[in-house]
């Protein structure tokens, strides 16, 4: 599973993407956020603020109950500020 980070999430983590293999009980985005938050101090810092984090699965915006699969590309980012 590929995880992609943007904006301040990328800056805090110091990486723009990583490949992870979450355990089988991680079934949706909410679970994934909890699990990712345990990976490192930096991850905890990012995912503690998860109310301000938006997320996409395979380039579609989804809410946090969205199911996830092993070969998904999952992205975490703050609300958009283009235009």
């Amino acid at each position, binding site marked *: 599973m590929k995880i992609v980070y943007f904006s301040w999430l990328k800056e805090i983590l110091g990486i723009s993407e990583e490949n992870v293999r979450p355990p089988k009980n991680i079934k949706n985005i909410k679970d994934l956020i909890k699990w990712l938050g345990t990976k490192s101090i930096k991850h905890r810092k990012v995912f503690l603020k998860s109310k301000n984090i938006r997320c996409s699965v395979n380039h579609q915006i989804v809410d946090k109950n969205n199911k996830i699969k092993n070969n998904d590309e999952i992205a975490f980012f703050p*609300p958009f500020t283009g*235009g």
Partner: protein
Amino acid sequence: MIKVQKQRINVSEQNRNLLKKRIGAVVNFIGVARPLNNSGKIKYIEIEHYPKMTEKKIKEIEVFASKKWKLNHCIIIHRYGKIKPGENIVYVGTAAQHRNNAFKACEFIIDYLKVKAPFWKIEQQNNKKTYVKSKKKDEKKIKVNY
């Protein structure tokens, strides 16, 4: 026509494209990088985006607006990368038979770009880098779902 690009937008060229078809009304919006924020002078802004998602999202907005407001032509260009104050950031051009449609479509597109297209802005000042926060006002403005 949609484009996500690093270089400056040639507004004249795009307006010529919009005017090629012999329509009644052309409206366009140009977003320009501001020279100041609340804490002072901005050296430049930097726009990050999510390449695999950006064009797809903008295309969705273009297709929806073109159909809803019967546009003869629609151009959406959004830049990323470093942008200096005074430079353009985004161009939205709409051409339609009637001006009401051209206006509504153009305003809709820029409203949607703000909250639906995966861009993030950083404001770089002398000793300070700020991740721009999204405006609640902008999210509230979006009523139509598509």
